[in-house]
């Protein structure tokens, strides 16, 4: 993308094209008016020569014509502006997608490389059983990583095409979170996770279980992945505030910089820069979290005290207690 733009001539640059077209339009408006006034003066002379009543068709028409011209030119201007903004947006999205593909290829290539490496090693050498088991374990992990990535892409496509939604079932949220942690204890084994539920309520809610699991997976894996402390810790708190259910995921990880806090939910957004190769992640995880939250009529916000001081993701769902406990 970058190189394509570099190679095109400077006068094709969209900003310049935009400025030139505005200038041309403004100039043409001035010329229209100028000529119109000239022509109507000539006309006026004709009128006086022939002794006609000038008030009948001169004064009012001049101003109407100028007004109509101005409005039309104004509309064209607005149109150009909208097209300009739109094209900039598309360009930005294109660049992000390009970055995403770059990075996602890396995410896919890494487990494939590892798998191929071990398979070729196994073909080449007869390893002892203990080593075999160890490396087979690596291969299983690589396959899991691969299928996780593939699932993420497929899920994104499904959510975006809105083919999800009708599959909501009533589920107890606190229990769902606890079950998830138990089911994935191997993945989360280095991490201390505490679930706090001071109200003691169960919080039943209509959810799509597989999507909700994916949301939890993304939030918890992020909390672990972007964590440099010796003992990663995640506190999950359920709270009912003003008929809204808040589920807070607070970690002791590397935190988020202020200027990134809103952007991280954007599709394809990655922290770090691509050109110096510090970009991390697929740029999909948190976008999926937000999409899933929205699908459940909720939203998600991030908070952080700054870099290195942990981050906190809060899911909010509309929640009327009386509707659920049957009051």
């Amino acid at each position: 993308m970058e190189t394509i733009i570099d190679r095109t001539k400077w006068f094709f640059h969209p900003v310049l094209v935009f400025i030139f077209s505005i200038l041309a339009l403004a100039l043409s408006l001035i010329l229209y008016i100028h000529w119109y006034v000239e022509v109507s003066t000539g006309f006026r002379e004709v009128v006086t020569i022939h002794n006609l009543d000038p008030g009948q068709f001169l004064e009012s028409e001049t101003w109407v014509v100028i007004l109509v011209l101005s409005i039309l030119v104004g509309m064209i201007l607005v149109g150009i502006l909208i097209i300009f903004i739109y094209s900039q947006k598309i360009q930005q999205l294109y660049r992000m997608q390009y970055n995403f593909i770059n990075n996602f290829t890396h995410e896919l290539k890494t487990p494939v490389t590892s798998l191929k490496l071990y398979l070729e090693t196994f073909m080449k050498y007869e390893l002892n059983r203990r080593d075999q088991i160890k490396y087979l374990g690596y291969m299983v992990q690589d396959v899991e990583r691969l299928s996780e990535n593939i699932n993420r892409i497929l899920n994104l496509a499904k959510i975006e095409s809105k083919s999800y939604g009708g599959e909501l079932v009533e589920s107890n949220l606190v229990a769902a979170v606890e079950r998830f942690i138990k089911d994935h204890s191997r993945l989360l084994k280095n991490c201390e996770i505490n679930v706090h539920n001071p109200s003691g309520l169960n919080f039943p809610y209509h959810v799509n279980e597989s999507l909700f699991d994916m949301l939890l997976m993304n939030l918890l894996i992020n909390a672990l992945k972007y964590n440099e402390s010796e003992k990663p810790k995640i506190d999950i708190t359920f709270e009912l505030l003003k008929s809204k259910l808040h589920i807070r995921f607070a970690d002791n990880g590397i935190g988020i910089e202020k200027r990134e806090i809103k952007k991280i939910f954007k599709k394809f957004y990655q922290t770090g820069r691509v050109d110096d190769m510090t970009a991390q992640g697929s740029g999909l995880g948190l976008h999926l979290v937000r999409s899933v939250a929205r699908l459940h009529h909720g939203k998600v916000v991030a908070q952080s005290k700054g870099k290195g001081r942990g981050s906190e993701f809060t899911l909010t769902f509309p929640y009327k207690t009386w509707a659920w406990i049957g009051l």
Partner: protein
Amino acid sequence: MKHSAKKRILVVEDERHIAEGLELNLSLKGYDVTIAPDGVAGLQKWKEWQPDLIVLDIMLPGMDGLSVLQNIRLEDDRIPILILSAKSDTEDKVKGLSCGVDDYITKPFDLDEFLLRVERLLTRASWARAEGYLSKAVLSSQPRTYAFGDNRIDFETSTAYCKCGEIRLTDQEVKLLRLFIARRGKPLARDEILQIGWGYTGEMTTRTVDNFIVRFRKYFEDNPKKPAFFKSIRSIGYLFDH
């Protein structure tokens, strides 16, 4: 002379599975292998352990592989370095080769091909060592002396001859001068200078770089206020113009 006949290979790779797989295969081939999980650790191991060959990944956390490569090349132009990267565009390969890498293999790679290339690189390096006449300085593409304006730098003795006479240069000064000369005419960002010249990453203060530039200007510029060689580029960094 190395202590053992075993050749040492440093693997700089952040993906644990791949790093261990490489270690396994290279050890089975009879090499002595060490793994570094990121760029900074890689540089440290390179200095301490003095490997015979380095296998380098490009996408590393913190300091990336190309910076590691450039940092090493400023001091050692001979050690064979092989890039093993998922980036397969010609552009990326050219970038690596222009930074002085000896070989470039893309992931996923073929195990036998990788092992043969490693073997070949090591063989060639050992020839160069055996034919002792190829001294480090001759083989190095870095110039032994460099002259600009009324200044001359002798890299072998780390001495600069300039308007204020003869100056003994520190190792860090020599390294930075090499970097500026290697990249003459091209702007260098402060972070880049820090990463390549010092091997630092992240929150390091860029004032350090500025201080060195002030010193260079005092040594080499006729008028340090209006530099002709070590020019500032606003909001980017510096440019060695010669």
